[in-house]
């Protein structure tokens, strides 16, 4: 127990100490030696900046005298790093000097922002954007409320006026990051209540509201509201109020009824009637060409744009000299008339374009840069106007100047071609190139971190090269990009050009300022729940200590997206505004939903048919086969970018299911992918039989560059042919009906340079596949197979494409063959040796993707008794198509020629063009035809009509047992999706 008088003395002592402590202990630190400078975090944080970096940064150093000004400047510099929310300098006597401690309170930065909502729309992305919180930005608790307000606003747009939004945030002192979660319970979606129309609507409000088509239970979401407003706008347009203004001014929500009243402000404006006089233009063309309709307003700029559009339209029809005057006339209550007065002038045809005086550039180089075009069969009058010609002359002039011809003069002369009538026009472009300015001495100065030779390889400018400012601009971009990607974000570039004493020579210098180099200090990865961290690490194109490179960040982002297991990959620099050279990189990912289930319905249309008893139906009949498909997929299997998928399809034509495992980027090689598949298929797309196939396969895919891909495959399958469905000679049934195990190894190479695989205009596709089935691989049938395909595509002009494709397939059995037991005369069994390649392994052709003179899989050898297609061991096919537009961008047509056939054996291959005798099917079949193509987002829908020019005739045993002659039909009609090749 402390005596009372001593406690009182102690209190007085404490109070006096505190009262006078500033005076008593306000030691004059100035000038005292600083024995230690320390840095201490204020909370239990880790200092992300190395101590050595901090010590180097500040002017107050250990061993130097204490200076108040240095302490102040140290605080400024520490704050300027952007890492610290507060800095305090404490001093304490230490021996003969003073020890200084900087207390640092770390700043936090925004990390993962997760918005969990029980409704959609708005989408996750919209909600995320509404918070205005960006990865890597400085975090302040004051940002939470505006984020919540942003969420509230976007939910109200979708009709949710009473949401509950709970924000949570968790700072991580180790990374200085704060992850934020917003839990949104949207509540009940409001319905549209009353609609109040204000302003000068002219048309009755009740009529307008009816145009919106909002019923009593219409949801008050953005799409319903916009659709309604669009309906009202369209009504005004249809009634010629082209400049009507519609504004949703206010939404009044009533919580008791959960309805929202809409207040629309409408200004109808004047009626606007658009007319064109002096030329015949349809109403639909006027609506397309005059932007007043689309923009919903009437001003000078839009009127001028309408004039230009009309001029282009008439130019395309050969009226190169048309003049158009836009006149606006107000007719009081009757509205405004916008009249385009057209004077078409003479219809002309641009016959030819000549170039004179050019020697540095060939004609082809200049012509391909010109927009005016002479007449050709796709453009009967050519393309010409004085405006286009002036642009072309400017383009050619710029081309010459970019190559050092600073004094180039480009002019054009127009001539009427008197030999062909006064309506034929000829343009002569006269080029006076002048002297070419070249670069004399050229130096790159200021490069400290890279050798001039290194930089020289990046630039276009060099001694002796043509002098061109556009080349300098390109060099500037190349050099700055190089420096930005090497960790120099503040690099700058200047250049000078000085005329040399020698004529037409310019001396040049590039002066660089590199600035400070920035490096990566830490890499923070977040957002992984199922994915293995190692998978992400292997995609990173940078590491701790490497220079901060924007291209490496973008490359990493692309690689992470390519894994196919993330819906979002965000990358940012922590504290981007701060002045520090050691940067932390943030990599935040959102994993995609792992499970996907799809159910689909569809139909196949073509010449198929059930297996009927009627043997004359060798080609089958036109049939629609509906189908249903079911797919289930799991991605991110085992935390890796692997996919496990199940696909199935059922129809009257086909039953198919497959279980697939795909492992891309094997051993972290982006060019090596592996897959394994187990597959069951029962199909009757060949009329001759129904086959069941069970197959397991493994495949490795290697991509070499952009165009070349190699596959190595091993497949093991068992194919059983349903004997009851075999439409072949009886003596063949025992052989061809046996189920056969086939173990097949093949190597495939593809080279693809097509510009667009679904609708190719340029490029080529070449594919070669060589394989062998052998007992070494568990196969009961031994044979080799080789298939080759080459397709090329040529853009002729306009959008006309010449496409051609050649296919050759060869397969041959080898070895002794396989032994099978057959019963002859129904009772006695005997063992025979056969080298027949199983019927299901043979080549089949015919149909929309091979030969359009035949129905599906109907080409080639036929059974001598039943007449059904047997397939063969050799395939020869050549296809040529001329593809051209018919109307707009969506409707096109083709003219095609398909030639080729299937042959029983390789030695049966022939180029004979006609059938020698009935039943001899060794010749090349030809088909000519026409098709229509309609473009859809998934590719063109194809309608083809083919005429078989030399259909085969063959023998068929009739029901009466007598042999009869039958021919395949001449006409085939085929429907499918995608181009034929």
């Amino acid at each position: 127990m402390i005596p009372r008088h001593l406690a009182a003395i102690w209190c007085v002592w404490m109070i006096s100490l505190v009262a006078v402590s500033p005076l008593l202990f306000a030691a004059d630190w100035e000038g005292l030696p600083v024995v230690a400078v320390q840095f201490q975090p204020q909370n239990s944080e880790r200092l992300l900046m190395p101590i050595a970096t901090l010590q180097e940064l500040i002017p107050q150093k250990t061993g130097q005298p204490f200076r108040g000004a240095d302490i102040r400047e140290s605080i400024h510099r520490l704050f300027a790093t952007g890492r610290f929310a507060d800095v305090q300098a404490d001093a304490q006597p230490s021996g003969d000097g003073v020890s200084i401690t900087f207390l640092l309170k770390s700043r936090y930065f925004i990390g993962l922002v997760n918005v969990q909502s029980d409704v959609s729309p708005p989408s996750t992305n919209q909600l995320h954007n509404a918070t205005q919180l960006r990865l890597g930005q400085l975090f302040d608790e004051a940002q939470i409320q505006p984020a919540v307000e942003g969420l509230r606003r976007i939910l109200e747009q979708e009709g949710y006026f009473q949401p509950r939004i709970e924000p949570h945030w968790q700072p991580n002192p180790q990374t200085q990051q704060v992850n934020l979660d917003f839990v949104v319970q949207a509540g009940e979606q409001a319905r549209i209540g009353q609609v109040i129309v204000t302003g000068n609507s002219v048309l009755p409000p009740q009529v307008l509201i009816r145009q919106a088509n909002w019923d009593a239970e219409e949801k008050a979401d953005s799409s319903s509201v916009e659709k309604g407003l669009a309906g009202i706008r369209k009504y005004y347009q249809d009634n010629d109020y082209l400049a009507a203004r519609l504004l949703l001014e206010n939404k009044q929500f009533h919580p008791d009824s959960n309805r929202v009243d809409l207040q629309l402000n409408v200004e109808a404006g004047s009626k606007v009637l658009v007319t064109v006089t002096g030329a015949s233009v349809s109403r639909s063309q006027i609506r397309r060409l005059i932007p007043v309709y689309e923009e919903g307003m009437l001003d000078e700029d839009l009127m001028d744009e309408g004039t230009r559009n009309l001029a282009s339209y008439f130019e395309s029809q050969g009226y190169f000299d048309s003049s158009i005057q836009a006149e606006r006339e107000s007719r009081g209550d009757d509205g405004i008339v916008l009249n385009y007065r057209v004077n078409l002038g003479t219809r002309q045809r641009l016959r030819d374009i000549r170039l004179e005086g050019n020697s540095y550039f060939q004609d082809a180089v200049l012509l391909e840069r010109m927009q005016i075009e002479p007449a050709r069969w796709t453009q009967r009058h050519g393309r010409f106007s004085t405006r286009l010609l002036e642009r072309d002359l400017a383009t050619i002039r710029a081309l010459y100047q970019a190559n050092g011809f600073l004094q180039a003069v480009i002019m054009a002369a127009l001539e009427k071609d008197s030999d062909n009538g006064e309506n034929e026009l000829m343009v002569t472009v006269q080029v006076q190139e002048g002297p070419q300015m070249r670069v004399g001495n050229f130096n790159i100065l200021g490069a400290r971190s890279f050798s001039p030779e290194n930089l020289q390889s990046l630039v276009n400018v060099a001694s002796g090269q043509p002098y061109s400012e556009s080349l300098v601009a390109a060099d500037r971009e190349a050099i700055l990009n190089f420096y930005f990607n090497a960790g120099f974000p503040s690099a700058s570039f200047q250049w000078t050009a000085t005329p040399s004493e020698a004529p037409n020579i310019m001396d040049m210098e590039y002066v660089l300022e590199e600035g400070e180099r920035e490096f990566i200090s830490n890499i923070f990865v977040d957002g992984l729940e199922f994915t293995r961290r190692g998978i992400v690490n292997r995609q990173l194109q940078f590491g701790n200590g490497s220079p901060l490179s924007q291209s490496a960040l973008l490359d990493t982002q692309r690689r992470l997206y390519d894994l196919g297991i993330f819906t979002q990959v965000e990358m940012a620099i922590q504290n981007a505004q701060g002045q520090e050279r050691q940067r932390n990189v943030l990599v935040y990912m959102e994993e995609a939903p792992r499970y996907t289930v799809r159910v689909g319905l569809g139909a196949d249309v073509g010449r198929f048919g059930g297996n009927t008893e009627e043997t004359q139906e060798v080609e089958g009949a036109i049939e629609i086969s509906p189908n249903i498909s079911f797919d289930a997929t799991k991605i991110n299997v085992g935390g890796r970018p692997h996919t496990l998928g199940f696909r199935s399809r059922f129809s009257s034509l086909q039953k198919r299911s497959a279980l697939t495992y795909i492992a891309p980027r094997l051993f972290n090689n982006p060019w090596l992918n592996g897959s394994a598949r187990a597959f069951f298929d029962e199909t009757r797309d060949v009329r001759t039989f129904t086959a069941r196939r069970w197959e397991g396969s493994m495949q490795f895919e290697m991509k070499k560059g952009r165009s070349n891909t190699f596959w190595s495959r091993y497949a093991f399958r068992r194919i059983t042919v349903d004997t009851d469905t075999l439409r072949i000679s009886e003596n063949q049934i025992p052989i061809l009906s046996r189920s056969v195990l086939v173990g097949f190894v093949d190597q495939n190479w593809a080279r693809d340079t097509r510009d667009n695989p679904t609708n190719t205009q340029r490029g080529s596709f070449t594919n070669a596949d060589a394989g062998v089935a052998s007992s070494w691989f568990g196969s009961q049938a031994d044979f080799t197979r080789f298939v080759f395909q080459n397709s090329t595509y040529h853009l002729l002009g306009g959008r006309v494409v010449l496409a051609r494709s050649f296919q050759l397939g060869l397969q041959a059995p080898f070895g002794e063959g396989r032994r099978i037991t057959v019963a002859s005369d129904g009772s006695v069994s005997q063992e025979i040796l056969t080298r027949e390649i199983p019927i299901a392994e043979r080549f089949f052709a015919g149909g929309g993707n091979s030969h359009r003179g035949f129905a599906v899989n109907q080409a080639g050898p036929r059974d001598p008794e039943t007449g059904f297609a047997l397939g063969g061991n050799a395939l020869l096919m050549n296809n040529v198509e001329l593809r051209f537009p018919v109307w707009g961008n969506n409707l096109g047509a083709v003219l095609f020629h398909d030639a080729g056939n299937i042959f029983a054996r390789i030695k049966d291959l022939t180029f004979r063009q006609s059938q020698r005798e009935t039943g001899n099917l060794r010749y090349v079949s030809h088909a000519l035809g026409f098709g229509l193509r309609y473009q859809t987002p998934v590719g063109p829908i194809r309608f083809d009509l083919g005429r078989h020019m030399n259909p085969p005739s063959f023998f068929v045993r009739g029901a009466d047992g007598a042999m009869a002659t039958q021919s395949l039909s001449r006409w085939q009609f085929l429907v499918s999706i995608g181009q034929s090749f």
Partner: protein
Amino acid sequence: MTLRLCLLFLLVPSLLHAEIVDRIAAIVGNSVITSSEIMEEANYRAYINSQPPVDDARMRDISFIAAVQDRLIEQTLLAEAQKGFPQASFGDESQFEQSLQKLRSRFPSSEALHSDLARYALTEEHMIAHLREEQAIMAFVDFRLRPQVRLTEDQLQVYYQQTLLPQLRSEGQATLPPFDDVKAEITRVLTEQEINRLLDEWLKNLRSSASIKILE
């Protein structure tokens, strides 16, 4: 027990030995104002206004500190705005030299000047830095705001009639100068008033758009 109390008496002073020598007082955008800067500014104002040096008691006056801090915040906001014109240099060197000379001429020697400044914990370098900064800010404000001043003839007349003449009359001036004689002076006065008004508005805008945080 007595020994423990003695040890406690001796221990407390050592616990009070570590001292905060400087810290961030306010954050204005990307800049900071430290406690030492507030102290220095307060002493500078006291010096040029011929007031006694600021003591610790005055430094504990919250309203006084807030006023000094506000002034520094405004200077910081204007300095930030000035960074938007990197090519221009503000401040007249001859005017600065004049102000410095005026200061020096008040003392018989540089030692006397330094001794006087030391009472306010200031040095000649401090004074030079403050003078330069003030001049630069004033020149920048003038550069930005003077072109925005538009005075009409009516405004000059109204000032002449309603402010200047009554003032001269109240001072007992018998002969009142004609308008044309004082027009230039009226223009100068009204321009200054207008610049001040625009400056207040500008500072208000800068404050509302800037992020300002007071830490102590």
